[in-house]
């Protein structure tokens, strides 16, 4: 079984702060990490490999420094790693990204047929959840999003059974391979790499492909040209014109403050008073 796991190197968005005064984004010291959602996909793929045998190839598109993310994936136990990087990819939106990744998967497939493609459910920087479905459609693979568990794989029949999270419950789905699975978060915990894999990762020669090597002939299908959407504006949320009315009273006693507050709130929002009274009754 050959599983390709698509990962992305992202800024650790939890570390991004906006300057309170100037409202500008502060990028200093924001480290690049493997998209946390992708780690669930990688671990799920590694578990399948442990159970059924086969190989796991990690794939990413990004700047040269994204190699670090791939090396990390190797340390967890992935067998191969491919970095697709080219200036032509700059400005790619999700459609163009899925085009490039789909093409790279086709190239990987030539060396060793791909049975499954795994990705995280979304990235933490873009949060779009579109690249996975995009790759599946381009490669004409069965798409299984928000998968919480891979129940079984039948290699001979090319069948796979998964649990998929949907609104209000879980769908038990059966489909055939090749298929693309986006993995739900919290479904597993990434393993602690072995020493042998740490050595392997630090010596592994990551395959670096440019646009041609990734099999993308049409330059207009990637980068800015291949992106239907464009970011026209990035801005900080505007502060509400009127600031909070700060409740004050002479005593500054919590009790008096509370009573004053309620009187003010209910005087202005009589409906709210009825609402609360109704609930409390």
């Amino acid at each position, binding site marked *: 079984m050959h599983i390709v796991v698509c990962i992305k190197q992202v800024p*650790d968005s*939890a*570390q991004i702060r906006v300057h309170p005064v100037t409202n500008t984004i502060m990028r*200093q*010291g*924001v*480290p690049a990490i493997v998209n946390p959602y992708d780690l669930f996909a990688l671990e799920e793929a590694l578990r399948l490999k442990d159970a059924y045998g086969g190989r796991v190839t990690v794939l990413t598109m990004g700047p040269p420094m994204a190699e670090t993310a791939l090396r990390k994936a190797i340390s967890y136990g992935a067998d191969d790693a491919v970095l697709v990087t080219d200036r032509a990819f700059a400005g790619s939106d999700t459609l163009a990204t899925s085009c490039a990744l789909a093409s790279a998967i086709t190239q990987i497939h030539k060396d060793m047929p791909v049975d499954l493609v795994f990705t995280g459910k979304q990235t933490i920087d873009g949060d779009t959840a579109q690249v996975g479905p995009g790759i599946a459609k381009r490669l004409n693979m069965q798409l299984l999003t928000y998968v919480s568990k891979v129940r079984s794989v039948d290699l001979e029949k090319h069948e796979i059974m998964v649990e998929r999270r949907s609104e209000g419950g879980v769908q038990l789905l059966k489909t055939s391979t090749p298929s693309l699975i986006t993995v739900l978060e919290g479904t597993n915990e990434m393993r*602690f790499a072995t020493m042998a894999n740490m050595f392997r990762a630090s010596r592994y020669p990551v395959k670096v492909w440019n646009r041609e090597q990734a099999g993308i002939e049409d330059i207009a299908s990637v980068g800015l040209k291949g992106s239907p959407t464009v970011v026209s504006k990035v801005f900080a949320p505007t502060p509400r014109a009127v600031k909070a009315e700060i409740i004050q009273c002479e005593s500054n006693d919590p009790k008096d403050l509370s009573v004053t507050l309620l009187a003010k709130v209910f005087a202005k929002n009589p409906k709210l008073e009825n609402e609360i009274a109704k609930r409390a009754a």
Partner: protein
Amino acid sequence: MSVMVKVEEKLFQNRYKVDSGRPHISIIDEDKCRNQCESQACTTCCPAACWTMEGNGQVTVISDGCLECGTCRIICDEHRNVAWEYPRGGYGILFKFG
């Protein structure tokens, strides 16, 4: 001059990868902290306020916000009651600037 400081506000700016369920610092003998230690210096000198003195006189440590400086271990020189290891590789504080 007294200044209100919330160390949580400071630690919030830091980046951590917490190894949940595997604290890297622990108390060897809790009874020693309660009954034999007079200074309980760890509860005032830890720069990340990981150590607290509970109402019942017991000292507890929660190492999630630990800056891995070593103060608590060295300061416990009379009792040597702190089991102190570095966190597992890659876990713990991750300085953005250092």
